[in-house]
C-alpha cells in the first residue's frame, strides 16, 4: 500500500526508506527536500509551512496512489512537514522502492513534481533582516532559485 501524511514533527527518512524496502525490490530511491539558506539571492533563516490540511492529505494520498499505479509499485510513501523549520530541516521526504531502478527514480521524481504542482501547502520564508514573505512560485524569477 502506498501511504502519505502531513507531520508537525521532524520527518524520519530512514524509517521511510526501511518501510518501502523489501527483497522483492532491487532498488530504492529516497528524495529529501530541505530548507536552503538562500532563496532568490536572499539569505533565509527558516520557513513556516502551512497547509489546507484535509485537502493536502487527500492530494498527497492521491499522488502516491497514482504514482504507484503509473510506475508499478505499492512501495511508495510520502510525508510533508508543517510548522516552522530551521535551515537544513527536511520539508518533504519521498521513499519509493521497485524491482527495477528506472521506475524507482521516475516515480520519486514524478511525486515531487506533482506535490509542487497541486498540493495546497504554502511556505513563508524568514529572512535575515527579520522580514517574512509568502513564497509565490508563479511570480517571475522564482523558479530558478527553488530546489
Amino acid at each position, binding site marked *: 500500500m502506498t501511504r502519505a501524511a502531513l507531520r508537525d514533527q521532524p520527518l524520519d527518512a530512514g524509517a521511510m526508506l526501511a518501510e518501502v524496502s523489501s527483497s522483492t525490490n532491487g532498488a530504492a530511491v529516497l528524495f529529501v527536500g530541505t530548507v536552503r539558506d538562500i532563496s532568490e539571492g536572499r539569505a533565509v533563516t527558516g520557513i513556516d509551512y502551512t497547509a*489546507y490540511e*484535509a485537502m493536502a492529505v487527500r492530494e498527497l494520498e492521491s499522488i502516491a496512489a497514482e504514482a504507484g499505479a503509473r510506475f508499478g509499485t505499492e512501495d511508495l510513501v510520502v510525508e510533508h512537514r508543517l510548522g516552522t523549520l530551521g535551515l537544513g530541516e527536511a520539508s518533504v521526504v519521498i521513499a519509493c522502492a521497485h524491482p527495477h531502478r528506472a521506475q524507482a527514480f521516475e516515480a520519486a521524481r514524478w511525486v*515531487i513534481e506533482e506535490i*509542487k504542482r497541486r498540493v*495546497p501547502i504554502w511556505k513563508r520564508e524568514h529572512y535575515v533582516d527579520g522580514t517574512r514573505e*509568502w513564497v*509565490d512560485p508563479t511570480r517571475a524569477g522564482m523558479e530558478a532559485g527553488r530546489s
Partner: protein
Amino acid sequence: MTITVLLFASYADALGRSALELSLPQGATVADAMAGLAGMPGSDRLPPSPLVAVNERWAARDQVLRAGDQVAIIPPVAGG
C-alpha cells in the same frame, strides 16, 4: 443558502481572516462566491481568478454550489 469560504496563507493575511460565511442565492457558482468577496477590505489583493477547491477538491469557476459547501480560495501552492 450559506457557504463557508476558507482563506490561506497570503490570502488569509489579505482579508485578515481564515474563514467567513457568505449568503448566496440558490444556483450560485464558485464565480459568484468570488464576486461576493469583492467588497471586503483586502479583497483587492486577491487575483481575479484564483485557484479554488470545493469540499477539498479542485473546482472550476462554473461549479454550482450547495448549502454548506466549503469553498477554499487557494494561493499559488509552494509545497516540497
